[in-house]
Structure formats: C-alpha cells, structure tokens
C-alpha cells in the first residue's frame, strides 16, 4: 500500500513540476490569452499572410462569379447530405493525405474559398493553413460556413461530388 502511495506521490510531483514549467516557459502566451487574444481561434494572421476571413456576402459573390475554387472541409458524410454547389470535399482537420493532386496542381495564385459547418468549427481554418503551407496565396475562410449558407437560403447540392 505504501509503495502505491509512493508511486502516486511521484506522479503528482511530476504533474506539479509540469505545471510550473508550463507556466514559466509559456508565461508570455498565457498573458496574451488573458488579454483576450485567441478567444476565437489560435490562428495568427501574421503567420499566414494569404489567409483572410470573409463574410457570407463575399463568399456568395466569389461563388457566383464561378472563378474561385470552393472547398468544403467537413467530413464526407456531411458533405453528401448537402454542400455549396461545385464545392470539392476535402475533409481536413489535418490528416496528411487529404490534399489530392487535383488541388495541388492548381495555380498558386487562384482564389480558394474554404468553409466548414460554421459556428465554432475549426476544420476550414486548418485546411486554410495547409493550403497556405502548400504555397497558395489567396485563401478566404468563410467562417459562417454551411450553417450560414443554408440559413440564407442559398443554393445547395447533394451527393459526394465525384463525377
């Protein structure tokens, strides 16, 4: 019994040391968080110069003009139930194999609109970061996402989008 307590005490001590090290090393980050940064996302715009957030109106204009590539970052099952017409499905909160040649062969200066479910969904931003890392220079994150698109009564398409 005392041996088990000794092991537990060691583990708790390691936990306490972890807390101290974390607080000491990341103090500046914690201060930034306390000041209100990162309340919406952990995205740092300065690190991703080609990525910017857009509203429903901008997303609709870009979609209607038909020149932007629209990417849906939700899981395939959600995409099949309904998505923005002509959108491609890149279910991507980050699994490495999701960016196909079909995307990677596109010119790096083309406009790409990414969206996910809306609300607090994170996968469109994750996809935007990956596109940025692949060299794409004009990535617009439609943060209102699918929720806002359908609420506005905009056109929908069903199916998996694979012609």
């Amino acid at each position, binding site marked *: 019994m005392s*041996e088990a307590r*000794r*092991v*537990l*005490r*060691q*583990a*708790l*001590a*390691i*936990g306490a*040391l*972890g*807390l101290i*090290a*974390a*607080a000491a*090393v*990341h103090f500046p*980050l*914690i201060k930034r*968080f306390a000041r209100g940064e*990162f*309340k*919406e*996302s*952990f*995205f*740092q715009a300065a690190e991703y110069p080609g990525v910017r957030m857009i509203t429903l109106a901008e997303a609709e204009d870009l979609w209607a003009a038909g020149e932007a590539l629209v990417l849906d970052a939700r*899981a395939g*099952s959600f995409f099949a139930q309904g998505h923005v017409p002509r959108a491609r499905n890149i*279910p*991507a*909160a*980050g*699994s*490495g*194999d*999701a960016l196909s040649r079909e995307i990677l062969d596109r010119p790096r200066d083309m406009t790409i609109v990414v969206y996910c479910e809306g609300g*607090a*969904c*994170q*996968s469109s*931003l*994750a996809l935007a970061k990956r596109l940025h890392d692949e060299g794409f220079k004009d990535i617009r994150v439609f943060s209102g996402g699918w929720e806002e698109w359908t609420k506005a009564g905009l056109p929908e398409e069903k199916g998996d989008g694979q012609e």
Partner: protein
Amino acid sequence: MVRNKTVLLAFRLVLGGLFVYAGAVKVLDPLDFAQNIRNYDLVGQSLSLIAAVVLPWLEILSGLFLIAGVWKRGAALVISGLLVFFVVLTVVTMIRGLDVDCGCFGALSRKAGWSVILEDLAMLYLGMCLLFQKRRTSP
C-alpha cells in the same frame, strides 16, 4: 510482464525518448497544438490552450525521469495514464466520425485512427511493464 533488467532499461529509454520528443515538438509550437486539441471538438478555447501548454511538459518531464531512472514508476504511471487517455480520445473521435490530426508527434502526426491506437497500446504495454516491475529490494 517483462522482468529482464536489460529489456526494462531498453523500454525506459525508448518510451522516455519518445515522450521527450513528442513533448518537445509541441512545446515549440503551442498554438498549433492548441488548435489540434480544439479540432477534437471536445473542449473550448481556454481548455485547449491550457492543455496545449501543460500536456507537453508532462510528456517531457515524465520522459526525462524515465530515462534518468529517477521516480521511474511515478513517471511510468503518468505516461500510462496519458496513453490510456489518448486511446480513449482516439476511439471516441473515430466513433464520432471526425477527421482530425492526432497531434501526437508534431510534423509526424497523422489522422486519429487505428494506427494511432495500436501505437499507443504498444507504448502502454511498455509503460505497464515499467509501472509493475518488481521494486529492487535492498540487500
């Protein structure tokens, strides 16, 4: 359970090394790791950031203690606890049908799925061997 001292030493070095590496890559980019945690869609912004700041240090310190052979069973307990948590988290994520990066080894991370579970279970086996090894008795 393995009892051979040399094998247990190898387990300590391998498991400790893996955890130090996993923690170090996360400490270098805490916001990226916070986003990884957030992507699991289980906790909000604040808890994601707190976990992203604290978890890597737990990994690093327990890994270092394991390698150094100091408080090694306590370190094995922390590591085993973390691994059980990671396995449960990955299973829940798969059941929910989410496609998320596991966030486990920085750039070497991949989709949270079966391979991550198997890897975690293999490490958990090493952790359990170290946790339940016989205590050396004084002569």
